[in-house]
């Protein structure tokens, strides 16, 4: 081996580092800086912008509390429903003869652009029953037309006469309707990845369980799910990050109005619509801090898997 100069690896890394620096490190540092400056990024204001997020002094224009809460809803509901549906469909489609067709049908939404899908679902949820498929179905079953994207009420009002308006209603009808569109788009992804994992489980294990007298539910619960758990974690991590950074779907369908704002739409609105770069940057930092642990966990996990390989 001919003597290599110390800077040779850096030379090869330089283009990648330069790109990362310009498009990743610089924006992050600048966002951090701006989050401590006033709305025109001129004077230092300390933690005022973060105080704004905590105090929520303008609940009409930028409801920070509702945005944070909605993000929690996206995080939990979107991830849980998508993983559960994806897993169920992976198991079920693996057992039918027309598996390829079924899987393709479920996977297709993934191939639709987010904006296009959002526009389609705006029509699906349309209040006018001549246009809105969902409301046409509801009314033909004897129900009443619901403003799916505007109604901020809680779904439990369907069951009781009228829900308690003053109590916090984390699950709003319209937020739930938006999350279901996200689920529609991502279930295919979860199903395909989980299905691949499922195919990796050797039939001997399943045969052995059957010989031991386990029924299908027990096999699913005690054999398949534990073996699949690393794959489930990977899928769930991807979905959690998707849920946290959700923007396009909300922006196209409601513009963040009717209390459907999430952190990503709110910081866009604060910075570029209202022109308050301070609060906008602070919200972006909050989102960054929120995503960070998820990233760390998934990177750790990746390293761990590499080591044990």
């Amino acid at each position: 081996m001919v003597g290599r100069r110390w800077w040779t690896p850096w030379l090869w890394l330089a283009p990648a580092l330069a790109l990362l620096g310009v498009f990743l490190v610089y924006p992050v540092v600048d966002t951090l800086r701006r989050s401590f400056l006033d709305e025109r990024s001129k004077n230092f204001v300390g933690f005022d912008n973060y105080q704004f997020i905590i105090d929520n002094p303008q609940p009409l224009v930028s409801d920070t509390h509702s945005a944070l809460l909605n993000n929690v809803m996206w995080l939990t509901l979107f991830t849980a429903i998508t993983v559960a549906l994806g897993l169920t469909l992976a198991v079920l489609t693996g057992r039918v003869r027309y598996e390829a067709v079924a899987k393709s049908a479920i996977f297709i939404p993934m191939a639709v652009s987010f904006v296009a899908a959002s526009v389609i679902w705006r029509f699906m949820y349309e209040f006018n029953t001549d246009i809105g498929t969902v409301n046409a179905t509801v009314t033909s079953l004897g129900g009443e037309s619901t403003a799916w994207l505007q109604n901020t009420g809680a779904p439990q009002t369907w069951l009781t006469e009228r829900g308690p308006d003053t109590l916090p209603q984390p699950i709003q009808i319209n937020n739930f309707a938006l999350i279901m569109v996200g689920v529609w788009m991502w279930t295919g992804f979860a199903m395909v990845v989980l299905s691949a994992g499922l195919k990796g489980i050797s039939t001997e294990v399943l045969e052995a369980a059957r010989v031991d007298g386990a029924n299908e539910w027990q096999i699913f619960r005690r054999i398949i799910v534990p073996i699949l758990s690393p794959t489930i974690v990977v899928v769930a991590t991807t979905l959690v990050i998707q849920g946290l950074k959700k923007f396009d779907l909300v922006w196209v369908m409601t513009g963040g109005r009717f209390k459907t704002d999430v952190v990503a739409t709110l910081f866009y609105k604060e910075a570029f619509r209202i022109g308050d770069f301070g609060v906008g940057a602070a919200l972006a930092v909050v989102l960054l801090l929120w995503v960070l642990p998820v990233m760390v966990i998934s990177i750790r996990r990746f390293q761990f898997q590499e080591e044990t390989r």
Partner: protein
Amino acid sequence: MFHSKRSWLLLILFAMAAFALLAFVACEEEEEEAEIGTVDVLGIWGDEELVSFNAMVDPWELDTGGSMAFTGTRDITTVLTTRVEGGNPPDVAIPAEVGRFQQFAGEGRLTPLSACEGLEKTVRDNYPEGFIDLGTVDGTLYGFFMKADTKGTIWYNPGFFADNGYEPLTAASTWDDLIALSDEILADGTPPWSVGVESGEASGWPGTDWIQQILLNEAGGAVYDGVIDGSIPFTDSQVKDAWEKFGEIALTEGYTVQGGAEGINATNFVDSTYPPFESPPEAALVYLGGFASGFITDQFSDAVAGEDFDFFPFPGGGVTGGANIVYAFNDDATTCSFLNYLASAEGQRVWVDRGGFTSVNSQVSLDSYPDPISRAQAEQLTSAEVFRFDLDDAIGGALQLAFFDGVTQYLANPDDLDDLLTNIEAARE
């Protein structure tokens, strides 16, 4: 190894040469067009409106040899803020909202109209005083208005009115007359109103039009101006009264074909203009600005202005309206020539002829309008007893968004009006 190194060197040399050549060509091009070049314009128009705007600009391009690069976006505030913040503003901006205009002017980012020869005189001589005041920041005139829209128009179906013996109201009518007419129509079995406030991110603005129009007529111009400059807060009882009068229309049982708050919040403002003109009519009246005539003729292509659809003035005599403001970020020869053309009566007549354009330039005579409805709109704008610029567009910024959101929340939850008005006022900067 040697070989590949040399080819790299060659490649780099070649690339550098190409860049140098490109820069040289670019420089040369710039020098050639120093007189009248390309003007970079950021506006809100698309579709039909853009076709008409291009037609309006064509004569300028032919005369001067210049050209216009137009970017149209409904999200203009966002794009404009980003470009100004990034140090890359357009030459000319034509938005509908003046809040951001005042901010830019205050920060010294705009070019006074006096920097362009003859422009300030044209505007001061031919434009109504109210619009000149709106374009003035700290005593300097920075912008002028083109393409105005009256918002004092209540649309109805003349055939339906004649069949049932209803009388269109006049400017001299009162709010009580409007309620009496609504009750009469309701008693005959038709929902009197069609109301829809859905408009994506800006949902609620049609409701703010209602409230500003009621406020101007019931409380007067002084109160209206006070709400804009902040001397009268949204929590004032006269403002609250205007909200409640809007609620009287929107929330009275049976008054709207949308069936109340949920339907109003979920109905797009464009769709809300259709019901009175269906056969049979599903509602009798719809209140929306002059631009609604465009929605109606798009949907009902054989509808004749004045026969199948018409408007009567919002009772009370006062008229609110919106307009696009034109302002510039530099005083290049190209920019100045373009602004002078846009402000001129010759330029505006082109679009007036094509329809869908109301001019506030007094040199554009009423005879220029192609049909009775657009003429009546122009007349209403120029001869109104009291005229005020659109309330939320005059405020702009966060307070405007709070006003929008206030409308949708008020409809969903009318009992919390006091809290709501306090929260709207909290958004004032």
